[in-house]
């Protein structure tokens, strides 16, 4: 049974159809890539899967449970986490506090009014470890909005990882990064696949073809091709589209 299965999702905004019968599945342990041009519906697809929008038709199953149209909170509590294309952090908290508020102990006991977080050294140490995993060691106490762009990108991923998700969605993690920053994130994502199942949207196609087990190509709100990188290279549709040049 796939970990996540989306069946014939349909979503429109007014007259515009953004997702047209999109089906999609992720197996536990996979790293799946989603590519497609701007406006193809990739981010909308993520938003439907993670509870931001409700699809008009279709179903989403996570671990056999129907999560279609569930709220972001419920989906997150089921074990799905995500990062955002435009960064979305707790800007006036330190890097460490950004991670701490997203960790399981704070989610499960968000209404506890006893026990000081500052004195919980085990929790602090785990958060610091997570920051060090994404390459932010030594920057624990820097305020999020003061971090450099690349560091913010990494913190965005650390916050998404903090609830120990079983499935992690990354929305264009390398957006706006230079070559060096992109390499740093590639290395990070390669590492993360040991910990959890990942679905990543990317513009940077060589990057995706290098790391993904399988890739879905979304265009005009539809999945026009999917398969392993090798299969896609051989696909006549992909070869004929503007992706072909990059893939070949």
């Amino acid at each position, binding site marked *: 049974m796939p970990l996540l299965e989306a069946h014939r999702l349909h979503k429109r905004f007014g007259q515009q159809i953004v997702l047209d019968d999109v089906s999609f599945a992720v197996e536990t342990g996979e790293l799946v890539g989603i590519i497609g041009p701007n406006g193809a519906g990739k981010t909308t697809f993520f938003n439907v899967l993670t509870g931001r929008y409700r699809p008009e038709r279709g179903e989403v199953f996570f671990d056999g449970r129907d999560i279609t149209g569930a709220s972001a909170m419920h989906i997150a509590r089921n074990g799905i986490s995500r990062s*955002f294309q435009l960064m*979305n952090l*707790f*800007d006036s908290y330190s890097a460490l506090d950004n991670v701490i*508020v997203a960790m399981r102990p704070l989610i499960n006991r*968000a209404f506890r009014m006893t026990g000081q977080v*500052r004195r919980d050294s085990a929790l602090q140490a785990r958060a610091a470890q997570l920051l060090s995993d994404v390459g932010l*060691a030594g920057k*624990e106490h820097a305020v999020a909005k003061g971090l450099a762009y690349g560091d913010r990108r990494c913190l965005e991923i650390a916050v998404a990882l903090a609830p120990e998700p079983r499935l992690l969605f990354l929305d264009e993690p390398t957006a706006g990064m230079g070559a060096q920053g992109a390499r740093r994130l590639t290395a990070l994502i390669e590492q993360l696949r040991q910990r959890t199942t990942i679905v990543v949207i990317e513009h940077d196609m060589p990057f995706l073809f290098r790391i993904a087990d399988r890739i879905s190509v979304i265009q005009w709100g539809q999945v026009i091709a999917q398969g392993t990188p090798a299969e896609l290279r051989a696909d006549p549709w992909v070869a004929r589209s503007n992706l072909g040049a990059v893939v070949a």
Partner: protein
Amino acid sequence: MPAFQAAPAPRFALGYGVVLALFATSPVWLGTVGLYQYLALEVLIWSLYALGYNLLLGYGGLPSFGHGAFFGVGAYAAGLALKQPDVGLVAGMLAAIGVAAGFGAFVAAFISHRRGIYYALMTIAFGQLAWFVSIMWHSVTGGEDGLLNVPRPPLDLGFIQVSLTSHAALFYFALTLFAVIAWALWYLIDTPFGRVLGAVKQNEIRAAYCGHNVWLVKFTVFVLSCAIAGLAGGLFALAQQSAYPNVMSLNNSGYVVMMVLIGGGLVSFWGPVIGAVFFIVARDLLGAYTETWLLWYGLLFMAVVLFKPEGIAGMIQQLRDRLRRRDVIQ
């Protein structure tokens, strides 16, 4: 890998000590600076109210512009309870807290899915509703005259009864409550709930995607803030020995916002207390010269919001930082 250093604990004890010491000694020195004991009692009550309000506005980022309703409901609840035979001081204060929190929960159920201007507008609407009811429900609230002759029962500690009939005695009773609640609020900010509240303030959407119940966090903090406003209102009913509709008016709801913002509640825990002192003393001093003191105070408020949104506490912090930097350079 270098060992991770925990962040230095923010300092609380110093400010706490200074505030309590100044309040506690006020009966001694208030007279010599030309003020009077009742003023300190009023400052204390407003400080308590403003600290509770700042939990909502400063720490939760939720603008309630009708908070006077909960202060007023607390005053009426305490007044009505204490006018019954055999209702003691503690029961009266518990009634103030309980009824204000209950009304707060009712209002919070309608507004907690909102934020920003819509949140503010809905709190104004509920505030006006409470004010209107307090005037119209004559048989219970006494209408425009309000509740008069609210008794001040003695504080029963089991082994001894302390009379609160003097302003000084009531002042120390209020100071004790203030000391407990100020400490509890400070403590709360660093608990899991306090941290999650800060996260919801900064980014509701991200908090929801982490799995937090944003609605319930906003609901809870509103009820807590209303409970404290209710207690302050109960103390006010004791201080004035009455409860009247004016405390629920839009003006009165505005005062607490002005106190918190001028004092600097957005940048400092003690900002609301500074603001309450500043407001009440300004009212007395400016009020002695001119009937239109609120005009001048309002202009001052506009100046602060425009040029110094961090308020008085922010100015103090800036001054301190500047002095420190000078020390480093020399």
